[in-house]
């Protein structure tokens, strides 16, 4: 007698299917979407992107998602960026500058507080932050705040901290190369870690011939 439990109980998770109840946002890069559960960036959760040098942030990776979030009419907070999010280019890319907050907290304590408040306030659709490093308790608090505020929390950290555990729902190791980037999924809630995913950058900057 064949007995399929999943026919009776829809809420039982089978390893292969992945979570379907979490909201997600297409990244704009199909190769990456295929590997992420829900087909994109997890919303209402914390995403950590580890880069070699946080002063060289690959904004191209996240701009399609930020543009897509614009229809929510909520704000987008940029907390302590290590460089200058360049207004003319962001406007060209389709980001609504009038809904952007640029926050430079004076001290590290203020930084974490600012990220938590912005995430949990339900006012920001996305909170981009550059905390350099993220550890257990702090990441847990930020993750909870992101859930509370239904916000996409995004942290750019240095890849030298890759070995430390954090509570982020998604952790990516990002290595840019000539054609795009090589992405390693270190941790992924509801999915599987994946090594050396080649991301080809077809969506260049507007008018870029590359």
């Amino acid at each position, binding site marked *: 007698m064949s007995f399929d439990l999943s026919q009776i109980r829809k809420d039982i998770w089978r390893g292969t299917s992945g979570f379907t109840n979490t909201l997600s946002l297409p990244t704009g890069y199909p190769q990456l979407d295929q590997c992420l559960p829900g087909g994109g960036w997890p919303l209402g959760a914390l995403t950590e992107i580890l880069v070699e040098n946080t*002063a*060289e*942030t*690959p*904004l*191209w990776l996240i*701009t399609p998602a930020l543009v897509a979030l614009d229809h929510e*009419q*909520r*704000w987008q907070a940029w907390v302590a960026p*290590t*460089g*200058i*999010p*360049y*207004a*003319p*280019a*962001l*406007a*060209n*890319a389709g980001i609504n*500058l*009038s809904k*952007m*907050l*640029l*926050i*430079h*907290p*004076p001290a590290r304590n*203020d930084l974490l*507080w*600012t990220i938590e*408040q*912005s995430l949990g*306030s*339900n*006012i*920001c659709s996305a909170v981009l932050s550059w905390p350099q490093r993220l550890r257990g308790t702090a990441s847990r608090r930020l993750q909870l705040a992101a859930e509370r505020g239904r916000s996409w929390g995004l942290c750019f950290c240095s890849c030298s901290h890759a070995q430390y555990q954090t509570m982020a729902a998604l952790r990516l190791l990002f290595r*840019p*190369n*000539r054609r*795009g*980037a090589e992405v390693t999924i270190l941790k992924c809630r509801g999915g599987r870690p994946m090594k050396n995913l080649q991301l080809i*950058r077809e969506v*260049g*900057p*507007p*008018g*870029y*011939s*590359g």
Partner: protein
Amino acid sequence: MALHLPLLPLVASTTTMTQAATVVCQQNQHQYRVIAANRSAEKGGIRTNMALSTARTLVPQVRVLDRDLQAERLAMEQLATFATAWSPTVVIQHDRVLLLEIGSCLRLHHGLPALMKLVHKSLPSEKLGCRIAVTPTPASAVLCARSGDDVCVTDRARLISRIGSVSVQKMKLTRRQHTLLMRLGIKHIGDLLRLPRDGLARRLGLELLQDLDRLTGKRPDPQPIFKPPLCFEASIDFEREMSEVEQLLPEAKRLLARLEQYLQRSCAAIHHFEWRLQHENHSCTQVPIRLSRPRQRTTLLIGLSQLALEASFPTEGVTQFALYAHPLTLSQLKNMSLLPSTEPCEPDQLLDQLYTRLGHRAVRSICCHPDHKPENAWISCQPGVHKPVFPSAVRPLWLFRSPRPLLIQNGRPCFHGPLELSRHERIVANWWNETPVQRDYYQAQSNRGPIWIYRELETGDWYIHGIF
């Protein structure tokens, strides 16, 4: 409705209420006279308007306070502001009388008895010795309240019979009028009303007749309406020094609750307010808080106050804690949407929190700026302000804070390996001011993706400016 508060000077001149006999006196024509006496002083036989020396003979151990007119005026204004909750038309009459027009707001209070009950409940009647008179005309209400009884008359015919029994001495009379009336044997207002009007005007003057007409309502009697002042001050004194923010928070909550009550009464909102912490050595720490928009509810302000106080709490102990809010703006209530998602979110609450903890300069937004120099083509601006977007050439999303020099290998610039240059753009600008730019920009393909580099025309040095 008139409220007479004979004991107000007593409450205003002292902060500690005692059961011991106390009088407040004022110098009047080279003689100190009693203005107000508390209950135990009255038991001893002291009456108002008595000379202080007489009072001292009656009760030798009586405590004497000087009249504080300034404090009295402030207390009166506070009471008047408080009374605007019952009626929009409040008048401060001289000599401790508050006048309220209540005819138009009886329905709001479900009738006169309910309103009387509310007034009695809200006022510390015992402490102020409050007398309430309700009559159809303002002048008669003041007269009745001052004569010392609680009166409640609503129709005009009964009013005339009620004020008829009041002594003429309670009216404003000149000495001549007074002696003349005594000589004529007229003791009550009723006797005056019965006299022929023309004779009365001839003998006692037209003004007395007009006063009588105001009493009975034959003559209109407009009053100057009290407007609550557009500022709020409240303070709390501590017996011992406070050195922790946590100790102040309950007091802050109490003061903010008073502020909210005040704001609702005067239909006002605050845009910024200030905490003042007084120290033992009379120095003062000011903690100002600005709000992104005027607010009437103060529930959010306690959180902001905590943030601000924590950020700038002084090392010395605090002996007095005060809240100042002014100027107040008239509140413009906005319609809220019924469905949560239909309207764009207002970031006020988050912004206020961020401003309070981080300061206004740390929280900005960005916008485009029409300048040829790439690092000047954007400026930070106030959040929530719509600025025009200018069309620009291809630009990198991420700019370095300052351009970094590139390594040169074999005469060519390098960034993590050799570069392929394309798309040349020459920017020569600002030669008309102090920050001239002469640069040749290139989009370059590196091993880390496309970057934006330039060559300084004057020096020939290569720099990386941003990444696409």
